[in-house]
């Protein structure tokens, strides 16, 4: 199961994968133990091997302990998972590290629009550029995004970043990520948004610093980019 | 069967409750016209509404004579939707 996780290229993706592993092993042990117990009972206590069943109502406290003690262990493990999972959640969704780069992401049926502030670093100015389905970011930089939607609910999902956030019409939702490896990664829509939902897919390009500069120049022109 | 005397008393009680309900309804109207702060007015108006509703449920719907199970059936949903409303405040009411 673990090997099916796609490559991780974000700073918090490692935490998500780590959490996945922890829960996988904890629940895996319980799962295997429970199933083994079940199948052992079915074989060992089949009526061909058992003349007189054990009469136990499980009501006295010593008998109830056979259920309640494992349950107590489950409770302890639950609280542990809550703690670790809560920390991961906090890091991804509640902390907003200082931005190195900004982008506005807008979902619409059935495309992603990425609006870049341009060399002046401000939105709402003449040099803003909107590119459909192509997100370009530099590697090793915190990218802050503001997510919104023009029509229905979409969900901005980048598996390689372990990032998912719904784009909700009428709201602007802030988020961030920091990519750790240059390359191209796919962006999907993870919330049913109409008949074109399956085709609503974009590409995240993570550039090295030099590549990113080249991309900026080719997009805004050398003169303007130099002004930055 | 109740005695005639008890019956008259019960009837008088129902009418007394109604009198209170009407008085409270007028009081709520009065509060809405008073020049007091909005919060104070809201608290007073909905306080009065709660009292009225409680009176109707207690005396007209005979909740005061009912057993625990009926109280539970009536009160749990009230608590539940109030809890729902409170939980949704950060998402819906404070979203801007």
């Amino acid at each position, binding site marked *: 199961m673990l090997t099916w996780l796609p490559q991780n290229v974000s700073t918090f993706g490692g935490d998500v994968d780590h959490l996945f592993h922890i829960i996988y092993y904890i629940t895996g042990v319980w799962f295997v133990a429970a199933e083994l117990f079940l199948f052992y009972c079915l074989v060992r206590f089949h009526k061909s091997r058992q003349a007189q069943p054990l009469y136990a109502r499980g009501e006295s406290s010593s008998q109830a302990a056979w259920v309640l003690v494992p349950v107590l262990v489950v409770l302890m493990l639950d609280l542990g998972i809550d703690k670790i999972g809560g920390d991961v959640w906090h890091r991804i969704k509640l902390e907003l590290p200082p931005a190195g780069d900004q982008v506005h992401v807008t979902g619409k049926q059935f495309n992603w629009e990425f609006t870049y502030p341009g060399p002046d670093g401000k939105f709402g100015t003449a040099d803003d550029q909107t590119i459909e389905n192509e997100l370009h970011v530099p590697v090793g930089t915190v990218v802050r995004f503001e997510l919104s939607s023009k029509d229905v609910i979409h969900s901005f999902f980048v598996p390689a970043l372990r990032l998912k956030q719904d784009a909700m019409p009428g709201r602007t939702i802030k988020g961030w990520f920091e990519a750790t490896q240059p390359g191209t990664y796919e962006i999907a829509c993870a919330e049913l948004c109409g008949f074109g939902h399956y085709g609503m897919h974009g590409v995240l390009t993570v550039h090295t610093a030099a590549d990113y500069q080249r991309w900026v120049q080719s997009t805004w022109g050398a003169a303007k980019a130099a002004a930055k | *069967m*109740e005695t005639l005397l008890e*019956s008259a008393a*019960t*009837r008088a009680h*129902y*009418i007394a*409750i*109604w009198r209170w*309900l*009407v008085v409270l*309804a*007028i009081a*709520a*109207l009065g*509060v*809405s016209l008073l020049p007091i702060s909005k919060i104070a*007015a*809201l608290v007073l*108006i*909905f306080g*009065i*509404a709660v009292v*009225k*509703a409680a009176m*109707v*449920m207690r*005396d*007209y*719907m*005979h909740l005061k004579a*009912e*057993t*625990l*199970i*009926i109280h539970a*059936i*009536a009160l*749990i*949903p*009230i608590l*539940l*939707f*109030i809890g*729902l*409303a409170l939980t*949704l*405040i950060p998402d*819906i*009411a*404070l*979203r*801007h």
Partner: protein
Amino acid sequence: MGASAHAPTAVAAVNDDAFKDIARGRIAVWWFLASEIMVFGGFITCYVLFRYAHGGWEDAARHVNWKLGAVNTVVLLTSSLTMILAHHAVKVGDKQGVKTFLGLTIALGLTFLVIKGFEYHAEFAEGFTPLSGLFWSFYFLMTGLHGLHLLVGIIINLSLLVMALRGTIWACGDRVELGGLYWHFVDVVWIFLFPLLYLT
């Protein structure tokens, strides 16, 4: 309950738990009302949250006719009184009283609906429809559903009145009480709708 008559005494005592003393009609009606509380609770929750989120609904709320609303409040409270008096009449065996009070309740219910109709008419004439903004959507939806509930209550009371006139109501004595529970519930809903929609 009837079955206990057949039981040996040894087990009769086992059964004295709290639930079996309640007539099943009352459990059923209260259960139904509880689900209604959740429905109206849902509406009120949405309304209150939206109202807080948006502001500016006071301007819209100023256009509803609070005077007619207040009259209607008194009408409905009075109908609750006549309803409970009808129930009381059944309890004490007052045959004329049952008919009178059921009839009064129905008349008051109809009065409420007529006044509400005038209100709607005036509001539509001023150009306020369910599409004139969220406040008006909620206003028409909630008062409309409340009116429908009242209409159902009137129909229930009419059937009770017919039974009273025919004299069959005495064989199934708690029906007026059960109908009354529903009627009072509709009143309670209005007790909250009135300040929510008219007074704030």
